[in-house]
């Protein structure tokens, strides 16, 4: 799986660090380091008010930091 978090200025100010840190932790806890290619890109061109842009295998999502756990469960763990 390819997981990309937008780390551009706009998403950074909306909490991309918290999103990245939580995802990093979840990937570690679930030992998915080898199956998820986790990367950051400066601007996915999907700037949205209050939310951080994330791209998973070509599909776009926009998340609040507190939505990371449910995103991870629904989109990654359940589809493994």
């Amino acid at each position, binding site marked *: 799986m390819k997981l*990309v978090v937008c780390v*551009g*200025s706009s998403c*950074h100010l909306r909490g991309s660090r918290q999103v990245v840190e939580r995802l990093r932790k979840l990937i570690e806890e679930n030992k998915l380091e080898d199956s998820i290619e986790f990367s*950051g890109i400066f601007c996915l061109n999907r700037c949205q008010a209050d939310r951080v842009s994330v791209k998973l295998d070509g599909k776009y999502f926009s998340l609040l930091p507190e939505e990371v756990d449910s995103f991870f469960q629904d989109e990654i763990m359940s589809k493994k």
Partner: protein
Amino acid sequence: MRKFDTKIQYLQYRAMTEVSRAAWNNTLQEEILDIPRRIVPGNIPTMRCCVYKERAILAERVKLAMGGDKSNPNVIEVIKIACDECPASGYEVTDSCRGCLAHRCQEVCKKDAITFDSKQKAQIDKTKCIDCGLCAKVCPYNAIQNHTRPCENACSTVKAISMDESMAADIDGDKCIACGACIYQCPFGAIMSKSYLLEAIDIIKSSQNNTKYRVYAIVAPAISSQFKYAKLGQVISGIKALGFHTVVEAALGADMVAASEAKELIKKGILTSSCCPAFVDYVHKNFPKLVDYVSHNLSPMATIAKYIKENDPTAKNIFIGPCTAKKVEFQKPEVAPYIDCVLTFEELQALFDSKELDIVNMEEDLLDNASYFGRIFARSGGLSDAIVQGVKEIGNADFVAEPVPCNGIAECRRALLMLSRNALKGNFIEGMACEGGCISGAGILTRGDKNKADVDKHSKIAQEKTITESVSQLP
């Protein structure tokens, strides 16, 4: 709205703007010979002996805007016909000498170089004089003056500038560290850096609106002290309007460097910084035995550029900063894979105006990637503060970072001499070739005391407050 400090900057800017405008329009070949006349119209000279010389010099500026002399590997070039061949005779007695009785000048001279003629006026024997300047200091009439060249003065530590057979300034590329101090100091604008504007325009145009590949602008933290006529957010909007995909702070690279350099310092015990390319070059050329002390980290520019390319393999990175030495650094084999082009703030201004972008009427875009500590790299002392913080954040209580901030290449030299004698008072040399740090680089629009205050102000509003947090934002 004042954009530049001097008329010299304005002339070079005009040449760069005209070249860029034609390059965007694909009309450079047709227009190139007309550009000097466009900048100096009419028949009345305002700068030199005649408009023909003025235009001849502008033709040279156009050439530099297009990349300069390809056979000269140095990025700093002398425009020989613009050099006024300033007198460089050293200390001389002027007509102000009153022929006094005290003869303090003779008294103080350790080389017995001063005698008196039949009218009791002092004479300096140039075969004995060592230009120490003591006589000039003690003369009650200030009658002894030092005739030196501003370019040679600017280069007094590096000593890369001399006179050629026609008395014009000549730069020894083997000694030059491309700091650009001479560019700012030459009152005739006879020394300039090569410009890579055409390469930058080509990279942007060939990206076809960032569809073939994405073009990233990596901006130096000194940007917060420049473009004083506009808001920083408007400058960011302007950069994007030129056709860049996005703008990234080199200061985030500085955070990454601070974190890794702090570790390297603890491991090695003694270290010098590696972020100023002119300083690194100076160590290589003058203190080869100390090269191992130079941090093995890439510069902040190259560090963040490497991250961008590793995560977006088609990316093209253009660095925009205050520095002429970066124009050398990006061509080095260890940096070339990550940085595709380097521009200065002066060149960015020319690009704005070549596209007639009125940035003061633009919306403010965002720029926030780095921490306070990454941003203060732009001014002298900032890197030292960041290293102390970096060591603190690692949490090693047994090791204390003792930085020696060196403000300007003369201070760097003194610290390196001390290091070579194992007498450095500290364990980390912050080497900054420009006095004041990057905010006084040769490629800036405006210099002055306010630049430091502006950088500090912008640093304090960074969202991330620690180096660790800042680095943690990247997957």
